[in-house]
């Protein structure tokens, strides 16, 4: 009886992740207070903004705080985020929404929402805008993260009554509309999302074959893409990562090249992606090699 009291493993895990969610929320609040203290008003994406739609917030874990700031303020805010205090809040600072969404910053900001956490507020995108961001982000990762498809699933399942489908689908143009529709289609196909009563019910059923093939291939793979420059110290991992890139993930390549999600061959996007990646990759690898070399000599 005097031995250390123990909880069941399931309860232990739920409690542990509940606390982690609370800690992450606290970091988000502090990150906002920190940036606001210097006159910046960021918008939080992913993380908490996605978790709030989950029936149990603890199921959506996140470690960093993704904050977007107005592009003109980015460099100044970056200095702050990289300061010793800023680093405490795990801020992943974004220069506007950049490739994640082409809707002008002012529009996104005007439509954003303040939500309360711990007697404070954080600013998030309205659900319609966040849907586009989540979909584009998920596709940018090549659809590799099955668990993140739940972000899209729950956003739609728990969407507010006044959800503006027109804004969510069309605000970023017809190409990105198709990206979103395909993500919803995938969430229906693999997670059972009910989209019967939505304007995309029919369209989302028509998924390109290459898309589902690519998603299933990624989910079966044990290897996730990592930046090459982070693998320089392990040649086995490095060569694994090179092999992983041949051929390039068609989803990632299409999104990177701002391509259409139609039935046509992905080759042009895959080639385009390879060619556009070579110069920055060579540069990054060169810098990483140099850094490694200098470290060893020191």
């Amino acid at each position, binding site marked *: *009886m*005097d031995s*250390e*009291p*123990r*909880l069941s493993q399931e309860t*232990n*895990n739920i*409690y*542990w*992740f*509940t*606390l982690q969610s*609370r*800690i992450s929320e*606290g970091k988000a609040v502090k990150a906002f207070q920190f940036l606001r203290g210097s006159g910046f008003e960021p918008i939080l994406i992913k993380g908490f903004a996605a978790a709030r739609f989950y029936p149990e917030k603890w*199921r*959506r*874990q996140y470690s960093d705080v993704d904050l977007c700031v107005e592009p003109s303020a980015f460099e100044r805010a970056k200095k702050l985020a990289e300061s010793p205090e800023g680093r405490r809040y795990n801020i992943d600072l974004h220069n506007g929404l950049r490739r994640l969404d082409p809707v002008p910053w002012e529009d996104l900001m005007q439509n954003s929402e303040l939500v309360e956490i711990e007697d404070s507020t954080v600013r998030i995108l309205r659900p319609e805008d966040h849907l586009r961001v989540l979909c584009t982000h998920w596709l940018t990762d090549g659809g590799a993260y*099955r*668990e993140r498809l*739940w972000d899209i*699933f729950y956003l739609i399942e728990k969407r507010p009554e006044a959800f503006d489908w027109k804004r969510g689908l069309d605000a970023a143009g017809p190409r990105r509309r198709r990206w979103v529709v395909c993500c919803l289609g995938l969430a229906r*196909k*693999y*997670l*059972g999302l009910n989209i019967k009563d939505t304007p995309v019910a029919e369209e989302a059923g028509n998924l390109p074959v290459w898309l589902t093939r690519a998603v*299933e291939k990624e*989910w*079966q793979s044990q290897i996730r893409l990592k930046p090459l420059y982070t693998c320089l110290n392990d040649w086995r991992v490095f060569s694994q990562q090179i092999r992983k890139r041949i051929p390039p993930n068609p989803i990632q390549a299409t999104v990177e090249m701002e391509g259409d999600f139609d039935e046509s061959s992905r080759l042009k996007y895959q080639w385009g992606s390879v060619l556009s990646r070579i110069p920055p990759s060579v540069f990054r690898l060169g810098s990483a090699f140099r850094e490694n070399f200098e470290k060893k000599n020191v």
Partner: protein
Amino acid sequence: MINSQNPVARREGLVIQEMPEEVLVYDTNTNKAHCLNQTAAFIWKACDGSNSVKDISKLVGDEFGGAVSDDFVWLAIDQFNKDNLLQEKVETKFEGFSRREVIRKIGLAAVVALPVVASLAVPNTVLAVGTCVRVQCCAPSTTGGATCPAGSPPSTCPSPCVCPATGNPTLCT
């Protein structure tokens, strides 16, 4: 009025999460987490520096509808000491008994649940966000040939497999 002899619950450096019947506490200094059951949580909250152990035992009795001894409160304080949940450690006074004997003695007589502080362990599995709860998969498939009951963790799910509800090929990991 705060009396330096009275226990004071620590607040600094702790993340506190109220649950329906328990209180979870994460110590950011040690990265350790604890779960206080209802009784322990009540006593911990009553440790405000103005309540003596005797006061707290009376408060517990009033709250839970059954008289408890001072030892009952000391038992909680002993655990708070161990887990660093007090501003300053308070010397426990079990009046000649060992902690084990006190637990036995109180445990037999107590109407109120004993105060318990359980430590949380870091889960050794990744979060099972993608469990098969949703699609209730999977039936034996042509490729996988294994089954995956609803709610099973991703690590046990075969892939690829077929979801019988929709007939769609699906993956559980």
